[in-house]
């Protein structure tokens, strides 16, 4: 290493206004959102990374749901003939797919996020929550055009809403966002310790397509509430199922009502809004627990990566 002597002039006094504090980034999730520029770069990076060396690039985000929609549509129509009892069945299916897709992408992307960014996590002091959060935002950006498409389709076929519909829509959205964030945050941390979790989460997200009312109406589930009360309660305890029910009430039911096609399948579970409100509180508590767990687990990230 070459030795270079100090400059002749005397050293300047540097006055630092900042307080003396621990150098580790503080603030958790809140701290991440206070650094929007960093978050924007991470999201941009995430988008760029996913489609690097890919010919179709961003289009893949639309091809996959489109293919899934087509397959489900023809399977369900051809084999189960669901469309005969469920009016606006395509809309019912699409609404379910959009929000389940958002959940899946946040959960699986978020779970892998810290491990995938280990070169940064081990060398730089940035709030680690930024990685699951940027996965969540990336998933949201990918889902947004699908949501717009859903709204356009609703507008084209006719759509109306009421107070219950609006409250349902907002509650459903809040639940799915909070719950996916909690899942992404928690599993991103435990995945650093055991990579099994990314497989567990991707298996769970596969199941999710069958555990929410999109290929069948929620009335099908309601019909077993007396014969199989435990299974019914377990089904309804799934935050994603609850969110999809509420969002079906907003999108699909609005369209069915506008076309005067209400029938036996367009009913919703009793106490839907109360259940939704409780579920939102539960999800917020889950998010808080996920943050606590993350903070404890993150201490050992650098040596585990």
């Amino acid at each position, binding site marked *: *290493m*070459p*030795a*270079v*002597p*100090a*400059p002749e*002039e005397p*050293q*300047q*006094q*540097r*006055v*630092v*206004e*900042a*307080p*003396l*504090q*621990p*150098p*580790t*980034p503080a603030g958790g999730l809140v701290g991440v959102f206070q*650094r929007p*520029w*960093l978050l924007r*770069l*991470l999201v*941009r*990076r995430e988008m*760029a*990374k996913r489609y*690097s060396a890919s010919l179709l690039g961003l289009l893949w985000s639309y091809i996959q749901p489109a293919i899934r929609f087509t397959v489900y549509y023809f399977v369900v129509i051809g084999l189960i003939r669901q469309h005969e009892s469920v009016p606006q069945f395509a809309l019912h299916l699409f609404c379910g797919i959009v929000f389940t897709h958002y959940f899946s992408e946040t959960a699986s992307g978020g779970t892998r996020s810290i491990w995938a*960014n280990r*070169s*940064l996590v*081990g*060398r*730089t*002091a*940035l709030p680690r929550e930024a990685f699951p959060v940027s996965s969540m935002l990336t998933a949201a950006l990918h889902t947004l055009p699908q949501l717009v498409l859903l709204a356009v389709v609703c507008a084209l076929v006719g759509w109306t809403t009421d107070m219950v519909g609006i409250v349902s829509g907002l509650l459903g959205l809040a639940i799915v966002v909070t719950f996916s964030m909690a899942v992404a945050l928690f599993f991103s941390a435990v995945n650093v310790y055991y990579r099994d979790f990314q497989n567990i989460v991707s298996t769970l997200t596969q199941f999710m397509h069958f555990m929410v009312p999109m290929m069948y109406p929620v009335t099908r589930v309601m019909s077993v509430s007396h014969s199989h009360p435990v299974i019914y309660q377990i089904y309804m305890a799934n935050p994603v199922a609850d969110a999809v029910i509420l969002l079906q009430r907003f999108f699909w039911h609005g369209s069915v009502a506008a076309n005067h096609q209400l029938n036996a399948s367009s009913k919703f579970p009793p106490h839907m809004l109360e259940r939704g409100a409780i579920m939102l509180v539960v999800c917020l508590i889950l998010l808080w627990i996920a943050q606590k767990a993350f903070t404890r687990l993150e*201490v*050992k990230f*650098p*040596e585990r990566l």
Partner: protein
Amino acid sequence: MAESIVVDQVSKVFTMHYHRTLKQKTVATLRRLPLNETFKALSDVSFTVEQGESIGLMGLNGSGKSTLLKLINGVMQPDSGHVLTRGRIAGLVAKGAGFHQQLTGRENLYLNAAIMGLNEAETDAKFDEIVEFADIGRFLDVPVSHYSSGMFSRLGFSIAVHVDADVFLADEVLAVGDRPFKKKCMVKMQEIRQQGTTIFYVSHAAASVRAMCDRVLVLENGRLGFDGDVAEGIKYLHYDDDVESDDEESMADEELGADI
């Protein structure tokens, strides 16, 4: 003068895991082999650094220098004791910049600056200066995975040194740089030192520590073995007889130090 870094009774223990899968763990348990072992990287280290001081951190390989730097940088948290710092910290720990392999130099530059707390306008303002110093030319828009190790560390150093930090950390990052670039870096470090930035410089080259630092810390197996005057610190480590040794690199360093 204000305190810049306070390290108070800091210890850090690493756990080494030998067996990762359930099967391996079961077999190890049956054979009564240890599942993991702990290793004390730092034990009870305490010191205070004033703003504007330039510290040479020395010690043999594995003595805990990088761990200490990671704790000061905030990448790690101590298991006991506490680390406090004042102001923006920039620098390179763990022998390399925190870059993302698939991103281009330009994207990594913005990301790294953002991690150190710069916003878009501040980065734009320093962009040309950073690129010019790093001297990576047309490789700016190429993913850093295609960079040579020299280019990689040049860009990392250039970003760290240009973000106007209050504390600057350098962990043997320049080891892969060529001689002209090393020289350029040392000049730049003297410049920021002269501007009152606290410097933490890890090096095995006695001559450059002598020129750059006004205090030396020596770590020995995770303990602070020496804290004080540069010449005494180098003597403490027995690095001062390097000149007589046949190690060409350090001899050359000593010569260069004498020339200038």
